[in-house]
């Protein structure tokens, strides 16, 4: 479980986050959603510790992220995996080297153990046998999955994903969503996904945090979205006329 308490963040005069309180629950896919510029990425970067908040605290279970001693912070970091929007795979390394990187840096596993874990992770993301390929030699969707494999290689307790579906076709996007959701349930980890993909919201949104102009505008889950009267949520989720028609049809359909 990760708890954000009264998070404020400013860049110069611009206040991006204005007092966010939210609990991201364990073994659930927690989504941060909102329009572009709502503060999603800033909140995610504060949650992982890449940005310091102007004010507020982040707790990983009982540990205050910004008050941890360096050694404890390093221990905590080893329990965190992250999938970046642009994958952040190292171009000069093969897929296998990319996935093995956290193990090379932080574990004393034998070569055979590392190999086994790499193969296991690649199978987990349905990409067996691409060990020796370079990131530039595989598709965007495969790169995302390799990014996920690297994020889970040390069996993290906390998994973050920044716009995991950006730049992917709808079918591949669904595959990535299902993969993240399955990993969350199988490993009972706390997963936080920053997205504005409506499919993701409706498919895997078990605990949703809607940001609007730097504030928490709504929280709930995918089952509550259709019925919810919150205007900001409705304007965000059903922004297009096509989706508005679909929603109207869905609500008018008798049970």
């Amino acid at each position: 479980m990760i708890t954000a308490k009264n998070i404020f963040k400013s860049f110069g005069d611009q206040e991006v986050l204005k007092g966010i309180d939210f609990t991201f629950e364990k073994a659930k896919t927690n989504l941060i959603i909102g329009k572009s510029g709502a503060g999603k990425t800033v909140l995610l970067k504060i949650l992982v510790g890449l940005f310091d908040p102007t004010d507020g605290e982040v707790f990983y279970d009982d540990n205050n992220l910004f008050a941890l001693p360096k050694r404890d912070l390093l221990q905590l970091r080893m329990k965190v995996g992250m999938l970046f929007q642009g994958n952040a795979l190292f171009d000069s390394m093969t897929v296998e080297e990319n996935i093995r990187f956290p193990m090379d840096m932080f574990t004393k596993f034998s070569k055979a153990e590392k190999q086994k874990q790499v193969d296991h992770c690649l199978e987990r993301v349905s990409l067996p046998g691409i060990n020796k390929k370079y990131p530039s030699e595989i598709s965007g969707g495969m790169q995302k999955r390799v990014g996920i494999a690297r994020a889970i290689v040390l069996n993290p307790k906390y998994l973050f994903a920044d716009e995991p579906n950006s730049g992917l076709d709808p079918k591949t996007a669904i595959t990535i969503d299902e993969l993240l959701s399955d990993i969350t349930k199988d490993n009972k980890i706390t997963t936080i996904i920053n997205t504005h993909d409506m499919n993701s919201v409706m498919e895997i949104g078990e605990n949703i945090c809607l940001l609007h102009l730097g504030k928490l505008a709504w929280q709930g889950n995918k089952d509550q979205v259709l019925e919810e009267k919150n205007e900001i949520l409705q304007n965000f989720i059903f922004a297009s006329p096509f989706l508005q028609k679909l929603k109207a049809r869905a609500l008018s359909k008798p049970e």
Partner: protein
Amino acid sequence: MYYKETVRQMYDIGIGSLMIIFVVNIFIGAVTAVQFIYQLSGTFIPKYYIGYIVRDMTIIELAATFSSIILAGKVGSNIASEIGGMRQKEHIDAMEIMGVNTSSYLVLPKLVAMMLVIPILVSVAALFSIGGGFMAIMASDNYSNEDFIQGLRSFFVPWNVSMMYIKALVFGYILTSIACYQGYFVKGGSIELGQASTRAVVFGIIVILIADYLLAVLLIGG
């Protein structure tokens, strides 16, 4: 991991720079010889001084300084672009989230590699430069190879070689650290990355030249 990265950097910096070091220093040595042939003509200075002058010019100044300026251009811009690109593609963020000490992981292997490789490059540069001088003498009508070789063997001061290596190490440290700094703290997009790369070269060369003067005063006396 650090060892592997250091070896990779040594290969990139060392082998990757050999060709340019070879070409530039051959011509620097040749031009130095030609200019002194011109300046010494009609004087009573013994002919073999040409070898002595080319050798000492090369060892005391040209090999270390010119090679470092070339490396500031080639390797400095490369380092700044590499690290800056990693910053922009979120590679550095990814490493930080993993708990990697990024400044150490990205900078230290490059510094160590440069410190290990630059003395070799500068030695090679000195060799090529003197070789270039020798080729210029071979093409000259008024000077013989024997004159040049006698000059090379005259008035040799071992301290000059030490001075060359001290300069090389200081310049290597300067150009690598400036390039790493410019790349590591790059913000923005491709334009800013280009600017950071340019700054790495310009600042690197300026600081190398300032350090060259200070080292000359310190090591030779001014």
